[in-house]
């Protein structure tokens, strides 16, 4: 990287907020995924004005810019695939305003998801999107990837809870879109920007909606002897038009791994469990829970447990939300997928995943948001063996292809990133992708924002000048 760029960055950000030594950059070449890409310089802005100056500088020198929050993402979204400047938002982590009367808050992008809830829960509110990484991941990353989570089944995903944004365009122009109300006149640019994976603008402020904590909550754990019985239950709950707040599936293998850490009382001898939660008014919760228990029993649930208090409920959720990480206990690395399928296709798809695992010789754990058909097969592999890594990626590709064949999608909530960009043509026609590229071109004409993401390689119009492949130092870990 041009030393002048680094010097200029240091001049207005201070030396403490600019990293360019090799050993420091190595700390930003990974995230929660299995991808690796090293930036050329890392900067830590504190204000929107800082971001504007960084972007202007990048624009002048035609250097790529990528944003990063906590780096917990699972699709490589926060990795500088083509080098350049990585903007880390960990120091822009202030809650600017909490407006309980109007059920809203304004936060900087580096605020940790769970910290929003922690700041308002005493007053009876919470921030609904609850990705499993919520104790560390940042709101900026949630916005970029349009993050989901177990409770999105009832409450919706990030885009349903973000009403306004302040963003910096590649030109350095600051734009405010949306506002504090659910709808604003003109194009829904907030909707366009949420989930754009940092390829249209850099988010510097987020206006979120706060949700009233439900009057009552009931958490059920349905235990099954076969995977099919569990997935049939999900299909029937949907068919009966019951919408639980969350409906999570864990197979026997996964819950044995999880139980070793969380000690929540997950049954070690079962083939699968469903973790189902209903919330709302006390009366409706009782009625819904009763009906769900009926459905579970009809589908041969061995037992349906009801969490007796908040502590037991928290433990069950702790197990679910930390499930990916817990896999580290049994395998040095894993590759987690994010496919979506119609709920009616669950039983057949799980059988297919099992067959793919056998074909490639991998253990594949299944844990997913059953309620909305968002699968997360986890392929275990040892990264020291490059052959295993390649087979894991091939197996994953086959699973994704199957999801599309049955009418689903390659990502439910983790984003396309660079992990799945090559799979996009499986889902979209040339014309579809062309339309998306034209949108990108309108806001990010030079292709400097997060290049190498979403679109298959070679698709980006402004990317010819940047390096063809990520600069990586290590084998993936």
């Amino acid at each position, binding site marked *: *990287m041009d030393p002048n760029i680094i010097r200029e960055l240091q001049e207005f950000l201070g030396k403490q907020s600019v990293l360019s*030594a*090799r*050993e*420091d950059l*190595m*700390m*930003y070449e*990974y*995230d*929660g995924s299995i991808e690796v890409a*090293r930036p*050329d310089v890392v900067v*830590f802005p504190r204000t929107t004005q800082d971001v504007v100056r960084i972007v202007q500088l990048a624009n002048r020198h035609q250097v790529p810019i990528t944003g990063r929050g*906590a*780096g*917990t993402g699972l699709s490589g979204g926060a990795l500088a695939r083509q*080098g*350049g400047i990585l903007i*880390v938002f*960990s*120091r822009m*982590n202030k809650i600017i305003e909490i407006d309980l009367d109007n059920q809203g808050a304004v936060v900087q992008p*580096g605020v*940790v998801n*769970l*910290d929003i809830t*922690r700041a308002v829960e005493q007053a009876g509110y919470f921030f609904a999107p609850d990705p499993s*990484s919520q*104790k*560390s*991941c940042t709101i900026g990353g949630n916005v970029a990837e349009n993050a989901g989570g177990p409770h999105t089944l009832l409450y919706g995903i990030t885009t349903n809870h973000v009403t306004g944004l302040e963003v910096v365009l590649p030109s350095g122009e600051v734009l405010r879109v949306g506002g504090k109300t659910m709808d604003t006149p003109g194009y829904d640019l907030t909707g366009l920007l949420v989930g754009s994976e940092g390829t249209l603008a850099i988010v510097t402020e987020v206006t979120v909606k706060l949700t009233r904590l439900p009057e009552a909550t009931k958490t059920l754990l349905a235990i099954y002897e076969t995977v099919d019985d569990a997935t049939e239950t999900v299909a029937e709950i949907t068919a009966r038009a019951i919408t639980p707040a969350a409906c999570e599936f864990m197979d026997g293998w996964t819950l044995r791994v*999880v139980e*070793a*850490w*969380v000690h929540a009382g997950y049954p070690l001898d079962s083939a699968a469990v469903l973790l189902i939660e209903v919330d709302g008014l006390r009366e409706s919760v009782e009625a819904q829970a009763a009906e769900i228990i009926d459905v579970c029993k009809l589908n041969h649930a061995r037992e349906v447990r009801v969490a007796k208090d908040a502590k037991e409920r928290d433990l069950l959720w702790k197990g679910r939300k*930390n*499930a*990916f*990480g*817990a*896999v*580290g*206990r049994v395998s*040095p*690395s*894993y590759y987690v997928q994010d496919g979506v399928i119609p709920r009616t296709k669950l039983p057949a798809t799980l059988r297919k995943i099992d067959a793919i695992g056998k074909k490639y010789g991998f253990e594949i754990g299944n844990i997913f948001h059953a309620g909305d058909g968002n699968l997360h097969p986890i392929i275990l592999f040892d990264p020291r063996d490059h052959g295993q890594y390649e087979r894991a990626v091939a197996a994953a590709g086959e699973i994704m292809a199957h999801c599309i064949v049955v009418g689903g999608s390659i990502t439910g909530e983790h984003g396309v990133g660079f992990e799945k960009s090559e799979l996009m043509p499986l889902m979209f026609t040339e014309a579809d992708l062309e339309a998306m590229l034209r949108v990108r071109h309108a806001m990010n004409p030079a292709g400097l924002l997060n290049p190498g993401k979403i679109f298959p390689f070679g698709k980006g119009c402004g990317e010819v000048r940047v*390096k063809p492949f990520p*600069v990586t*130092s*290590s084998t993936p*870990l």
Partner: protein
Amino acid sequence: MTETRTQKQVKGFVGDDKPSWDDYARCVHCGLCLNHCPTYRLWGMEADSPRGRIRQMLLVDRGELELGDGFVTHIDRCLDCRACETACPSGVEYGKLVEFTRAQIEQQHPRGLFSRLARDAFFRYLLPHPRSIDLAARLTKIYQRSGLAAFARATGILKLLGLDERERLMPRIDDRFFFSELGKTFPAQGPRRARVAFFAGCIAQVTFTKLNEATIRVLTANGCEVVVPDGQLCCGALALHAGVRDVARELARNNLEAFLRESFDAVVTNAAGCGSTLKEYPQLFQEGDAEYPKAIAFQAKMRDVTEFLADLGLAAPLKELPLRVTYQDSCHLAHGQRIREAPRKLICAVPGVELVEMFRSDDCCGSAGIYNVTETAASMEILEEKMRYAMATKAPVIVTANPGCLLQLRAGAAMHGTKQEVLHVVELLDRTLAS
């Protein structure tokens, strides 16, 4: 964008005392630890987060990163509070990793002359030797009591030397030392319910004599015969955390002898930091070593005083004490030993006491052994946030479970004018003993 492939090959970790692949490969870099790490929250830098530090260990081990100043700085800055272990779903034993890494740094990284002399003096010549501690304490007492300390403070000499904050953190030397109690047995009051050995600590014997005495009073009042075995030495925690593993191992050998001479129902300590290391003595030895089975036997007996009393159940009658208190989890109790309920149970057992939970009560207070002396600026920033949350509880008393935390929080209360008293759980219990 230019990546030179001509990086210097470095040798990585050497010898036996090093982190192993099996230990750090458990980290799946999910990042769930980040927001639980005090230094990551302070600076927002990956290199100062648990995930980043593990990544650096791995890169050093693979010869891709030099075991140089940058690496050492990030490892030095770790509090070893182990909050990341609580957050980690994958079961990474981070404390073990960082302790092994520091052992590598100790062996391979040349520190400056002053730093080397200070480390040697402290870890090798002071802590393991009660006589040195006794002498150093007497000299410090002269400084503190003669008016010299007041003089130094008044004239601003300390400020000039940049030592004023450190001086505030320095414990006041006791009027009488606990050394005289070694070898004694304190009979149980009423029917004997248990016979325990008391671990008295090292510096604590000249700075926390009253806490040790209170611990014995509370134990005996609850039907325990308390033996203070002679020949016991420092637990080795501070040396271990600094990477001076040979000293820690030697101290462990000594203590295994001292405490396994007789049979006890339990070995009890009032210092969570010591207790955590004492319970982990097996990690200092290889499975084939003669000491290994002893360390396992010792581990099975080792109890934090709050853990032991909560299990045993309080038998002594307690006076009513109408008081609002808050509890600061000591890191090596909550994260190191996974004990959270026991101290709270004991606090709530005191009639009249109302326990108000503090926001982020299991975040480190910044004491972290001698971290507040070696990394004073960071420690003070962490303490500032802690005192803000402590004050928000409006509790006039902060209760905690480790001498280091007591010192730090007392300094914090004075610096930030919170007017809060800071007590160990057993000091609170001692105050309410009816007799």
